[in-house]
């Protein structure tokens, strides 16, 4: 089980991710904007961030750089509606990438891979 911060400006997607990740045994917190995400990161203790590249009036990649700069041990998985995100080289700072889908399997597997690599999972009662 891990503490995951989901950052996406679409409420339906936040809701979907929250339910699916919770079902998979994770503790999920959601943010609708980068500003809100920064506040939550400062106040909470997270193991991983699931981050949308395109946020309303904000760039997920700017938030990614901020996280890497200030919390360089925090893994980040980028979620994008399109596969061209790698054309922006800033996206290469992320630890994992998934293309958004109504089937959460790929995201769950990517979370497992990244957390496994970092050894960042916690005991269920933590």
């Amino acid at each position, binding site marked *: 089980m891990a503490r995951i911060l989901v950052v996406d400006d*679409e409420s*339906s*997607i936040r*809701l*979907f*991710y929250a*339910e*699916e990740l919770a*079902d998979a045994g994770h503790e999920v917190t959601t943010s609708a904007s980068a500003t809100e995400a920064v506040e939550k990161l400062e106040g909470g203790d997270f193991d991983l961030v699931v981050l949308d590249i*395109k946020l309303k009036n904000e760039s997920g990649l700017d938030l990614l*750089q901020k996280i*890497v*700069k200030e919390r*360089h*041990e925090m893994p980040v998985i980028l979620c994008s*509606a*399109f*596969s*061209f995100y790698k*054309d922006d*080289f*800033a996206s*290469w*700072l992320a630890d994992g990438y998934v*293309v*958004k*889908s*109504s*089937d*959460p399997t790929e995201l769950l597997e990517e979370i497992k891979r990244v957390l496994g690599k970092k050894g960042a999972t916690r005991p269920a009662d933590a």
Partner: protein
Amino acid sequence: MEWECCWSLPEITSRDCPYIAEGEEDLFTSQRKRIIARCLECPRFRNDLLKLQGENNPLSGLLNLIATELLDQKARLHSMGVFLSSKTREMRFLHELSLVLQTSFNLDEVLSVAMTAITAGKGFGLNRALLLMTDRDRQFLRGYLGVGPRNYEEAWQIWREIGENDLSLRELARNFQQSKLESEKAKFHDLLEKLSVPLSDSNHIFNRALGGQKPILVTAASPPPDAGPHLSELLGVDSFLVVPLISRNRRIGIIIADNCITHKPITPQDVQLLETFAFPVAFALERASLHERLQEEVDKLTEANAKLKVQQELILRMEKMALVGQITSGIAHAIRNPLMGIGGLARSLMKTLPETDRNRESLASIIQEAKRLEDALNEALGYADSLHPAIDRWDINQLISGVYDRQKDKLARQGVAVDLELEEGLPLAYIDFNQIVFCIRALLAGITETEGCDRLSLETRLQGDAIAIVMEGNGPPLAALAGDRGYPPDIPGPSENFGLRICMTMLEKQGTPCTVETLPEGGTRYTIKLPIRKENR
């Protein structure tokens, strides 16, 4: 009165005069011609004049005076004739020379003609000529070419060959250019090296000849103080001529000419002729040099144009890709997010419904249709992506040169000396151009920002089935290349240096990791190997 000479006879035979040679038969029948051509010089005629004198003929003194004066005039005419013939030969020679010098743009051809003219018997006939030219920066007068034998044996051989073939000056020059120019350069290399002088040394005899725009003749009897024994020893002669080559007040170079084999004195006539000759030579040399430089500039421009064309095509391609990317990403975003919301929430809702709920069938349909639409979208986006593959064949030297050109001003400001050594004729590498450009830029910036780095070498070379890009800096290894996430575990990485971290990820994903070696003599070497075959990726 009986006359000994035949001057009084209108017509004579060979018995009357022994001084008329074969081929001069017209003198037998022409009294006037005979008197002027022969009788005036004939001892019999002199005897006849003495006879007249003995008879106290008042005309004898006058006749004697006229005859002597006529003989003087004749001798003067003869000498002028000889002089005119010699000048005519010189004019022909200079005309032949100037024809080549005025029409040739080829530096080697001009040099060959000029140097052959000085040393060939059909030209000025001096034994040896050495040419020194001002360098491009106009800092030095450097030895450029020497022509002539270095010893008597070689001289004998050359003169025998020339004698056997009886070639014109132009043919000699052509032969020289084709078969001897390069070997003569090598033959006199050591001497030419030693003769080089800085143009700033205004007291040196070479610079004085250039400054005074007049030839200087050095002889054993009158060595100029600055020529000294050193120069004579170097040349191996006591007597030599230094001729300046000046074109429109520009110092082109000098010619040193001497008779190192025959030791024949250099005459004032030689000096005058070479001085006259030096003007067209200097002009032709300057014109040929300028033409050569112009050609170099044209070549550079042609190459730059070709590169520009490639770059334009690349930009066009990138713009198309960017446009396609923009359109498709817009579509993707507009469709995928709501689609994901619909399909995802239907999936979540489904989980909450009991197995018997009759709405499950409808929800399953929604999930299935959403998935179908997602698949169709993926297929469309995948096709758009495949139209413009990121990985292609690229010229690595062009890539490196391009990156370096954009960075060189910055590197110069940082005080970093860069040595660029790109192997010619490399095959194309199979890479993602943008990613490799990004990586090289990131590495260059990283290496040159390490402590104490003020030297960088950038090299490309073929290594088996790969092209190696080797970067060496004299600074310590980049800390950002260590550690799992790009930084050493306990040391925070440089906050702004995301570039290196991205670079490492990219190179790893392309299967071309950067190897780092600490050099024993100090400094660090970074090597990236890029595949040249698709199957090696």
